[in-house]
């Protein structure tokens, strides 16, 4: 019985140590584990990402999407409701790319502050509902895209 108890305590102690070590490591590498920076992050990390390729994530600002006359370049603004960054992208946009929806773009900041994207990915939110429900919500004036709701909290 005592040997079993000792093994149990050893195991719990080992798990505790392992958990602590993992938590410390993950906290230390926080910046490397995020998939993208938000426009607000750029305010504080501006120097760090200069001339470097990185990912920018946020919502496509309503009414900001503009197709340039050349037919392949798209310009839009990415916002996290606090700050906004202009993005320029040449290429095909994914199915879920919409105004008011999440987006993650990979590229570099131009000296004039415009983010030139090489790749644009759509970010889906956690809401799943049939179109009729969205229509009903819109009629009742209750409809808000989820990401705005989440970031406004």
């Amino acid at each position, binding site marked *: 019985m005592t040997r079993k108890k000792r093994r149990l305590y050893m195991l719990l102690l080992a798990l505790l140590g392992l958990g602590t070590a*993992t938590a410390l490591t993950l906290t230390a590498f926080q910046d490397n584990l995020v998939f993208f920076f938000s426009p607000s992050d750029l305010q504080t990390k501006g120097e760090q990402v200069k001339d470097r390729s990185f990912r920018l994530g946020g919502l496509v600002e309503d009414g900001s999407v503009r197709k340039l006359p050349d037919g392949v370049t798209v310009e839009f603004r990415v916002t996290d409701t606090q700050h906004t960054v202009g993005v320029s992208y040449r290429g095909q946009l994914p199915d879920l790319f919409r105004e008011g929806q999440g987006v993650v773009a990979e590229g570099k900041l131009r000296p004039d502050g415009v983010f030139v994207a090489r790749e644009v990915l759509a970010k889906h939110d956690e809401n799943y509902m049939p179109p009729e429900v969205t229509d009903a919500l819109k009629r009742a004036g209750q409809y808000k895209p989820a990401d705005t709701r989440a970031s406004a909290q």
Partner: protein
Amino acid sequence: MTTALMHRYANPARFLRIATVVLPWAAVAAGLLTAAGLYLSLFASPPDYQQGDTVRIMYIHVPAAWMSMFIYTSMAVAAAVGLVWKHPLADLYAKAAAPIGAGFTAVCLITGSLWGAPMWGTWWVWDARLTSVLILFFLYLGYMALVNAFDDPERGVKAGNVLLLVGIVNVPIIKFSVDWWNTLHQPASVVRMGGPTIDGSMLVPLLVMALAFKAYYIATVLLRIKSEIIQRKIQTLRLTQGDSGAVESGA
């Protein structure tokens, strides 16, 4: 005493009797629930307001993801019981569950990739959620390789149990990766603070599919444990009868 109770059910003979009763029920439940779940998710549920019909991939993807984490956690608990109390059934369980868990993880990764290609615009990204699930898949494969890597099966099981317990730190990382860090993968829709953000018409088929996967898992894992116990019985019988010519290597 809980330990006394644990010992009671750790008896392989008693386990065999219980498994023989439960197995057919679980198998029938798995068949019926899968049929109902597939009908509900493919025909009776509405398309999504953003994703259209692509949302139907979710009815396979999410239950598979749940199973991948549930099975790993249960294997780690079995590993702890095996290491501390030396229960033969606990080790049998982890060995039997591993390939099924790896299978569910593979299904989760593949269906997720199929969904990501049209929706995100990419098959794969190295964000925290996707990467931690890939690590889970490698933990399953690593466990299976390690358990069979020793001449002495006892030592293999012991090493495998340690690996399972070390790997358990990955499970909360998978679950909370979408909350702790910016990820491309969306946050949780069902198991979250403040209730599900998934419409009832889609939640019901999802839960039916989750039950179907669970029933399938119970049936397959019982079958695998049963066959392992029977195989060991045959081996011991052959050894005790001294029939040296008939003694085959296990597996």
